Every structure is written in structure tokens, then in C-alpha cells.
């Protein structure tokens, strides 16, 4: 090994002698010096910002109501409205009178922030009936003069309590970035752990990807492209080959030696970032150091091309040129692959599945709705999906084998409110599942559930219910009206006049609808002091005997009451420790309710008393994606960010959760558990369905749809091409995964919450490693067999 180590060592010396290396060093030192003064401090989250408003329409409507409704003068809503600036009050008054007035979020934010300084609007009696968050109760209990920041925090919580369903759940602590001892003007309304996640998952990977993925790789190729052609000069090569060394190993040593340039630069940059993150941002993240080998690995992909080109043409200019062309090819293939993912494969992904008798109906990511045609072995479209469309399909629910409810929210893909209220669609098998409009759904409905003889609609701030009978009756009524008027132009799910009726219904109904309140035929289900702002999760008993809600750290079981207002009452409640802003999943199996939250232990509760039963730590680097309860208390099906499905069981007679080994297919999209047949329908790899018998956990049936022409092209041309051409761009995801220590990330893809997307770890590494191997073997063969 001595000769080959000598070659690598000589490359280090050559690199150190390079002026370009020292220029790169100086540039890195300047960058690190510029980043070094960055710091942060934590403070209470007090001021409102535009992003804090989850339901701006509801805010406008509530404040308008507080402004104009005399009966609310001594209520929190009226007191806050009275404290608002005169100009805003005038605008809200116009809203209350039925005018369309556009008010910017920042105007609301400024007005509410002004309220934080002067709490004259507060009255203990008025607020006694509002939702009391735990933090607010603790702050209310404090006596004596409070620090300014704590006082403002308390004022904010009081405003949030007075305006339920309006604000996003935010951490109590915010991060304020500092530079050289001075505060940045902007605040991050996240606590420290979220801030660290943000830095680890987005900031550091972006810096490293850009600097290493582009700048250093390109610079490295410029510097090292001449190494192989120079080695091939007669006076140099013949001397080297006269030594007792193997040609192949000599070339490989030179190859690794060439990587030293990037290694030296990357090491300085990553180690510098590591120390800045540690000493200035209090982020101890040794995983950051893994970016050094990954970055060198990325460079090695391009350098392997440069090496072969240098060997064949013996020209550094040609080597650089060929490498640049190769880089462009990688980019083009990556972009084409990304386009196919975005516009071909991903929109076809089945996001929700429903079983109506023997018919499987699925809603897709592209806003489409299809049913499985067993004879043709294809998904037949009911509502055509559109990758660029902005519509959202409410996950369908099946009433019986011939009737399914769903809705199409126009413009609701990223905005929970869409372009207004939408009609509930009733799809019947006899009309080939074509939907017919029924009752108008409350604004911003995200999910519907069937419970007993009622249909529940969950929206931004309310859970409302309508009787199934009325829903079906409305369909018939509308059909008759349509036939009578011979209009027939009211297409499925479309709104009329922004979802509102004529002005005859009056402004109060309008306000109610704007607030996301109930629409005709629906009635409120939950008491008014229950906040339903995301993140939240809900399970509804199909028999209609209870529902369980998790929101803002509270797990609550509701049961129907016989009161005149028909509101469901709280039967039991449990406060759950942990960050309230984390996304959550609830499922029930037998007498156990399972609560799964991001980065927090899995918790099991008794389904009636909500007493804690067991807990289980979330496996490392896994984030939850899906949770479904199995029939007869057999446990739960849990899909994690690795795309695999596992069973979670409670050991018989013990309060101990057990996470079993994954089973079934990978790349899980969604799961439907059919309690009647005791079967699970697992949708995987976009739109394939595997049916498992849950009693024996055995595969019963596999459904693979025949591919459309675009999907065929993707499967047999684009995907192989993406495997052959190393996906260097996807190595960026590898860096993200390494730095964050996670196997998935959350991206914005829906009104309720972001969608968790798995990092592509294996594909880019395998693809790049195979490519390097092939290039090196080719180079070694050429170098060993060629006369020089």
C-alpha cells in the first residue's frame, strides 16, 4: 500500500500548493467569519403576525359582530372590538352591515398588538366563560407586577381565548435572531426545539447544498481536471509506470488524491459551520460532519467523469467540458424526473380510500376522484384530477354499498376556505358514481364523518352535523328544482354567488357562514369553548355514541347529550404533555385509543376514561404518516416515514405497547380498514392495492392498475434513466436527512396540515455509487490496457 498512499499524500501536497485552494480557503474563512456573529435569544411569543391567523375570515366576522352587536358589549368579543383603532372599527362596522370590505392581516395584527400594551379591554368576569388554556390559567394565577414580556404574553392569550378558531397554535416561546449583539427585526414564532429543527432541516442543508453541491464541485473540477492529463505526460507517466505499482491502483489512488481538494475545502466549511451552530446557536449536531464524506462523494461522481475524459483525450479543457455536459445531463434528467413526479405520478397517488360494498373509491393528490374498475383493472375517473388544479376533494365516506358522500372544494387545495362554500356531493352507484349536490357544507370543511344517522363536517373551527336523511332528501329536492327550471347548469360541487344565497338571508347568516359556522341543515356539535384549530385529530364512533378529539394538548371524549341545544358534552378529558403545535393522529381499537404525535412518544389511553394505558417511544428517525385502528382490539396499523406499515399491539394483560416488524408492501400511500370484513386495503406505490386479511395478516388480493401512457413512459423510460444517470440533485435530500436526523420532512400540501414526504436516501446513494464504480472500472480498464 505504500506507493498508493504516497500518491494520495502527494495529491494533498499538490492541493496545498494550489493557489485556487488558498483562494477557496480565504472565501470559506470570510463566509464563516460573516456567519460567526449570528446568535439568538428566546422570548415570550407576544406580538401577532400575519402568519398567526389561521382563519382570517372568521376573525373579521367575529370582530365585526363584536363591533355591531350591542348584546356583546360586555362580552370579550365586544370589549376587544371596542379597543380597536377607529379606522378599523369603521371598516368592521361596514362588514357587519353586509358590505364587502377587504382588511389586510397586518391591519388586524397591528390593532391587536396595540391591545397588548393597553389591557383596559380585559375584564375577569367577561373572560370567565372563555376557553382557558393551561398557560393562561397559570399566568392568571400569577400575582403582583409582572414583567413586560409576561404581561404581554398573558394579554395575547386572553385575546386568543376570546377569538377561538382564529389563530394558529403557536409556541409560547419565540426565537429572536441576533447578529453581533443586535436583534434582527423579525421573530420566529417557534420554540427552541422547532428553531433547531428549522436550522437543521432547512438552513444548514441549504447552505451546504449550495456551497458544496454547486460552488465547490465546480471549483473542484476546474482545479483537478488537469491532474490526470498531467499524469499522462510522457516524462511523468513513464516514470510512474516504471515503478512497481499496479496501473489500476495507481489510477484509483490518483482519483482519491484528486478528491483531496474538495475534502480540504469541505472539511473547513463543515467544521466551521458545526462550531458556529454549536457555539452560537446552541445546536450540537455531530451529524453535520457526515456532510464531509457525502459532499466528497458528490464530487467523486463528477470527478469520475473528468478522470475518464482526461484519460481518453488527455486534455484538461476537454475533461472540464465533458464534465459540464454530464452535469447538465444530470440536471436535465433530474428536472424531467421531477416534472414526471409532480405532474404524472404524484397526482395519481391515492390519498384516501373508501369502500362502498365491493367498490373501492379513492381520492387522489391531484384533486381527482376515481373508483376501481375490477373488470378493466383500472381506476375509472369520477372527478378528473389536475396536477395544477387548486381544488380539493373531501375524503369520501360510504353510507352503504351504493351511496358515498364527498365534496369538491373549489380553490381549496392550499386554502381551507377555497373560493367559498361547497355543496356536499352524494354519489350513487346506479348513476355510475356521478355526484349530485346536496346540502351546502360549512365553509372550510376539511373532513366528513358518518356517525349513526348523522353526517359530521369538520371545518376550521367547528364540528357540525346534519342528518343523513336530510342530506339525501336535499338531493331529491334539488333534482326536482333543476328539472322544473330546466337549468341543469349547476355543476357538481360548484358554488353559486360565492357560496352565498341571495341577500334575503341577511347579514347575520352571512357572518355566520364567513366565520365557518354552520350552514342550513347543519348544527353545531361541540361546546363553543372547544378550539378546533389545527393541529387536531378526531375519531368518530360509527355508531354515533361518542367522539374523541385531540387538540392543543387536550384529549377529550364527547358523548351526545339530551340538552335542548343538542351539543355533545364532555364525558372525560385528559391533558397530554408535549408540544401542542405538533401534528397528531388518533385511532381506536377495542377499548384503546392511540395518540401518535411527531417526535413524541406514542401514547395509549382507555377509550372511555381516557386514562393512560401505555406509552412507546417513537423509533429513531421515523415520523408518523398514518394510523388506523384494527377491528376487535387487535391493535393498530402504523405507517411511518420509511413508507412501511407496522402493527402496534398492546400486550395481552399488560399495559405495554409493542411495535412489530414491518409487513406488506413499501411506499404506502394510505390504508383503509374494513371492520365488517376484517380486512385492510393497503394502497402503495401510487395506486396499487393489496388486501390483507387482518385475522391472519395474510395477503388476500393484489390489485395493480394498468398504466396510462404517461405512467408507462415514467415507469419504463424515465425511472430507468434516473437510475442510470446519477441523481446528484437528490443527494441534497441525503444531506438534509443526515443533518436533520430525520427520514422525512413536512411540506405544505393541504389545508389541514402539511404532508410528510419521505427523503430519498437509498436511490441517490445507490445510483451515484454505481455510477462511480462503473466509471472507475472503465477508466482502470482503459488505463491498464492502453499503450502510453
Amino acid at each position, binding site marked *: 500500500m*505504500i*506507493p498508493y*498512499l*504516497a*500518491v494520495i*499524500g*502527494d495529491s494533498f*501536497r*499538490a492541493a*496545498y*500548493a494550489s493557489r485556487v485552494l488558498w483562494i477557496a480557503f480565504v472565501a470559506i474563512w470570510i463566509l464563516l467569519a460573516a456567519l460567526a456573529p449570528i446568535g439568538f435569544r428566546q422570548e415570550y411569543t407576544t406580538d401577532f403576525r400575519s402568519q398567526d391567523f389561521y382563519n382570517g375570515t372568521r376573525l373579521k366576522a367575529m370582530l365585526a359582530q363584536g363591533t355591531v352587536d350591542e348584546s356583546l358589549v360586555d362580552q370579550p368579543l365586544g370589549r376587544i372590538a371596542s379597543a380597536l383603532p377607529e379606522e378599523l372599527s369603521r371598516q368592521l362596522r361596514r362588514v357587519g352591515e353586509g358590505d364587502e370590505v377587504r382588511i389586510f392581516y397586518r391591519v388586524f395584527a397591528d390593532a391587536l398588538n396595540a391591545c397588548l400594551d393597553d389591557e383596559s379591554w380585559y375584564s375577569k368576569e367577561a373572560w370567565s366563560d372563555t376557553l382557558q388554556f393551561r398557560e393562561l390559567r397559570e399566568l392568571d394565577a400569577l400575582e403582583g407586577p409582572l414583567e413586560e414580556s409576561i404581561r404581554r404574553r398573558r394579554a395575547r392569550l386572553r385575546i386568543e381565548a376570546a377569538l377561538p378558531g382564529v389563530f394558529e397554535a403557536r409556541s409560547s416561546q419565540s426565537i429572536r435572531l441576533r447578529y453581533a449583539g443586535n436583534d434582527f427585526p423579525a421573530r420566529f414564532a417557534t420554540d427552541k426545539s422547532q428553531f433547531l429543527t428549522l436550522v437543521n432541516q432547512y438552513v444548514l442543508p441549504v447552505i451546504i447544498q449550495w456551497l458544496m453541491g454547486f460552488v465547490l464541485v465546480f471549483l473542484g473540477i476546474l482545479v483537478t481536471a488537469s491532474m490526470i492529463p*498531467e499524469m499522462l*505526460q*510522457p*516524462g*511523468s*507517466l*513513464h*516514470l*510512474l*509506470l*516504471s*515503478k*512497481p*505499482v*499496479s496501473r489500476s491502483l495507481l489510477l484509483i489512488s490518483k482519483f482519491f488524491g484528486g478528491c483531496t481538494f474538495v475534502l480540504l475545502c469541505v472539511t473547513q466549511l463543515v467544521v466551521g459551520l458545526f462550531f458556529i451552530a454549536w457555539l452560537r446557536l446552541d445546536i450540537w449536531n455531530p451529524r453535520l460532519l457526515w456532510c464531509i464524506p457525502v459532499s466528497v462523494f458528490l464530487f467523486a461522481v463528477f470527478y469520475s467523469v473528468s478522470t475518464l475524459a482526461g484519460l481518453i483525450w488527455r486534455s484538461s479543457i476537454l475533461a472540464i467540458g465533458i464534465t459540464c455536459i454530464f452535469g447538465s445531463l444530470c440536471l436535465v434528467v433530474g428536472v424531467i424526473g421531477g416534472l414526471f413526479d409532480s405532474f404524472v405520478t404524484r397526482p395519481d397517488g391515492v390519498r384516501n380510500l373508501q369502500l362502498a360494498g365491493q367498490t373501492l373509491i379513492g381520492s387522489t393528490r391531484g384533486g381527482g376522484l376515481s373508483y376501481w374498475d375490477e373488470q378493466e383493472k383500472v381506476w375509472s375517473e369520477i372527478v378528473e384530477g389536475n396536477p395544477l388544479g387548486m381544488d380539493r376533494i373531501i375524503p369520501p365516506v360510504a353510507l352503504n354499498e351504493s351511496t358515498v358522500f364527498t365534496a369538491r372544494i373549489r380553490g381549496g387545495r392550499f386554502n381551507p376556505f377555497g373560493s367559498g362554500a361547497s355543496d356536499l356531493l352524494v354519489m350513487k352507484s346506479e348513476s355510475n358514481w356521478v355526484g349530485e349536490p346536496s346540502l351546502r357544507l360549512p365553509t372550510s370543511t376539511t373532513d366528513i364523518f358518518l356517525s349513526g344517522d348523522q353526517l359530521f363536517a369538520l371545518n376550521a373551527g367547528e364540528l357540525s352535523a346534519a342528518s343523513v336523511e336530510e342530506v339525501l332528501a336535499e338531493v331529491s329536492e334539488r333534482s326536482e328544482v333543476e328539472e322544473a327550471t330546466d337549468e341543469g347548469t349547476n355543476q357538481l360541487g360548484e358554488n353559486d354567488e360565492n357560496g352565498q344565497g341571495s341577500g334575503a338571508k341577511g347579514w347575520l347568516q352571512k357572518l355566520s357562514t364567513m366565520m365557518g359556522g354552520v350552514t342550513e341543515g347543519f348544527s353545531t356539535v361541540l361546546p363553543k369553548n372547544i378550539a378546533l384549530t389545527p393541529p387536531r385529530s378526531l375519531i368518530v364512533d360509527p355508531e354515533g355514541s361518542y367522539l374523541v378529539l385531540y387538540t392543543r394538548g387536550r384529549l377529550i371524549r364527547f358523548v351526545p347529550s339530551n340538552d335542548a341545544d343538542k351539543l355533545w358534552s364532555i364525558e372525560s378529558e385528559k391533558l397530554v404533555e408535549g408540544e401542542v403545535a405538533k401534528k397528531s393522529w388518533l385511532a381506536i381499537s377495542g377499548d384503546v385509543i392511540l395518540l401518535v404525535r411527531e417526535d413524541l412518544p406514542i401514547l395509549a389511553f382507555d377509550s372511555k376514561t381516557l386514562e393512560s394505558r401505555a406509552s412507546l417511544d417513537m423509533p429513531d428517525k421515523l415520523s408518523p404518516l398514518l394510523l388506523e385502528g384494527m377491528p376487535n382490539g387487535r391493535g393498530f396499523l402504523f405507517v411511518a416515514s420509511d413508507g412501511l406499515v407496522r402493527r402496534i399491539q398492546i400486550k395481552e394483560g399488560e399495559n405495554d405497547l409493542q411495535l412489530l416488524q414491518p409487513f406488506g408492501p413499501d411506499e404506502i400511500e394510505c390504508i383503509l380498514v374494513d371492520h365488517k370484513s376484517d380486512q385492510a386495503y393497503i394502497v402503495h406505490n401510487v395506486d396499487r392495492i393489496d388486501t390483507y386479511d387482518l385475522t391472519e395478516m395474510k395477503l388476500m388480493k393484489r390489485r395493480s392498475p394498468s398504466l396510462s401512457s404517461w405512467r408507462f413512459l415514467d415507469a419504463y423510460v424515465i425511472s430507468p434513466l434516473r437510475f442510470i444517470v446519477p441523481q446528484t440533485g437528490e443527494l441534497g435530500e441525503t444531506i438534509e436527512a443526515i443533518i436533520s436526523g430525520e427520514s422525512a420532512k413536512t411540506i405544505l400540501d393541504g389545508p389541514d396540515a402539511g404532508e410528510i414526504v419521505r427523503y430519498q436516501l437509498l436511490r441517490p446513494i445507490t445510483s451515484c455509487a454505481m455510477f462511480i464504480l462503473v466509471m472507475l472500472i472503465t477508466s482502470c480498464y482503459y488505463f491498464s490496457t492502453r*499503450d*502510453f
Partner: protein
Amino acid sequence: MMVSQAEVMSDSRDDNEECPVVDIGRLEKRYSGWSIFGRKPIDALRGVDLQAGGGDVFGLLGPNGAGKTTLIKVLLGVVKPTSGTAKLFGKPVESVEARRRVGYLPESLRIDRHHTARSALHYYGRLSGMETQVIKRRTDELLDIVGLGNRDRESVSRFSKGMYQRLGLAQALMHDPDLLILDEPTDGLDPVGRNEVRRVIETLRDQGKTIFLNSHILQEVEMVCTRVAILSKGKIRGIGTVRELSQRLASEIVVFELGVPEELDGTDLMQRAASQLKVEKDHLTWRPIAAGVIDFTASLPGRDQLDQMVDLLRAEGVSILRLEKKQPSLEELFMQLVDDSAGDNAEEQP
């Protein structure tokens, strides 16, 4: 010198004690050439046979394009022969064991600019598998031998051509090889430097090393080489000591000092001799050395022609003042052998 290396190799040396250091048999090398008119292969070596033993200082001579560089590349394992055998120390030239005992000085040595003389020697020593301590000791010795002792820490980018050659010689000697292949070792050196290199070669020869010397400077080869091979158009035209080669030559060189009558000059005499003795005019030269006295040199194929030449001179009334048979110089041998190969042109394009 190179104790550890030598010890390591002792077994293999014993095994191959009887083998020639360099053993080339019927070696052929054909380069595949391409042009827009199709394939145009070039025969660089055409059946070369050559052996060199321990202690030989073997001179390889030949005009440009004769195949010398190809032959050296084959010996170094850089170029693979088309057919035939090439062995060093009884082992195929491409084997690592064979190359471990070879030191090579290329014609135009390139050493990376980041090196000093000392670091370059360390690098090449490591490439030869030497231990650091041995390299250090060897470096000190060799830098003194080649006259770079006081400039050992200077960047080679400041070195002159001659200093490069000295450094190249040092690196070739670094691992104390048994066979040294020196390609134009004195190129760029001043006379003092050349003399030093000659002394190094002689010292190595005395140590029993085999030296394979490729040089255009025939006098130098003549001075240091014990054996010579003259290569032309891919074939060995002559091989052996300079004496052996000259004895094998068809012609003898005879120098006459002649007293010439006034009516006869050297040119007339040369024309008559050429026509009567049927000798090429190129093989006859003359020059005046005094009034009525000329120096007349003739390259004659045999004793009969010498007798006929004497008879002719006497018949023309020329007095033979002196007659001397002369040993041909290497240059004369070289020229003659190369000229004799001119007729092989037709074979060059198979």
C-alpha cells in the same frame, strides 16, 4: 545502499542468477494507426533479439524513429509487445517484481512543481516501496552524488534542465536498482556534469549493475558502454562491443599518405580508383596535407581490393609514403549500419 530492499530481493535474485538481466526475443510491436483513408499500422519493432547481462553497460543507438523509445517502453512495461518475449531478471517485464529492480531516467523528466528535490526523492522512493528511514539516508547520499546537496529544499520549479537531469538520475538510483535504464542521461548537462554522470555510470558498472543507455551522443556511448546495439527501422542492425562490430563490418578502412605527380590530383585519383575497383565514391575521400602530398582514405571490402588499390596507385606513378589500416569509429560503424538498412524501407509498410 538499499540494504532492506536488497535483502528483500535476495531470494529472487538467487533464483534468476543465471538469467540475463535483459532478455528480449523476437520482439515485435505494431502500433495501430488510423487516418481518414483507413487503418495504417506502424511497425515500431520487427523481431528484436537482445540480451544484456549483469555488469553490462549497454548502449542503444539508432536514428530517430528507429524504435529505441518503443524498446525502452516495452522494457518498462509501459507498452505491451505485439509478439515476442521481453524479460527482466527472468520475469516478464510487466510484472511488479521485475520493475522493482529497475531504475529509469526518462528523456524529459517531469516533476510536479510543488516538489523540492528532497520531497521528490521521498515521493519516488515511496513509490518504489521504500521505508522512510531508508529514503532519508539514501536521499542525503544521492543528492551529494548528483551535486544537488545544497539545493535540496528548493522548489523544482526553479531548476534548470541540467538540475532536473541530476535529480532524475538521483531518483533512478533511489532504490538501488540492478538495472538502470537511462534515456539521454547527459542531455542538458554541461561538460562537467557529463563527466560526473559518466563517473557515476562507471561506478555502478563496477558494482555489477546493468545499465541500459539510450543516447544520441555516440562518443559518450563509445566511452562508457561495454556493449552496443544499433537499431534501425525496428531491427537490430548490429550488437556487441565496438570492436566486435567493426570486425563484422564488410569493409576495411585504409589510410594512405601519397606522393602525387603534378599532373594528377586527388579527385582524378578517386575517380579512377572508384571505376577500376568498383567501389562507391562515398567510400573514398582525400585531402591535401602538403605540396604534392595527399591523405587518401578508402573503405575497401577486402584484401583483394587493397592489393588492386596499391597496384593502381603504383601504375599511376603515385608514391605510397605511408599505409595504415584504421579501426572504424562508432560513428562510422553507426552510419554504415544505418545506411545498410536503407533498403528496408519497403518493409516498413506491411
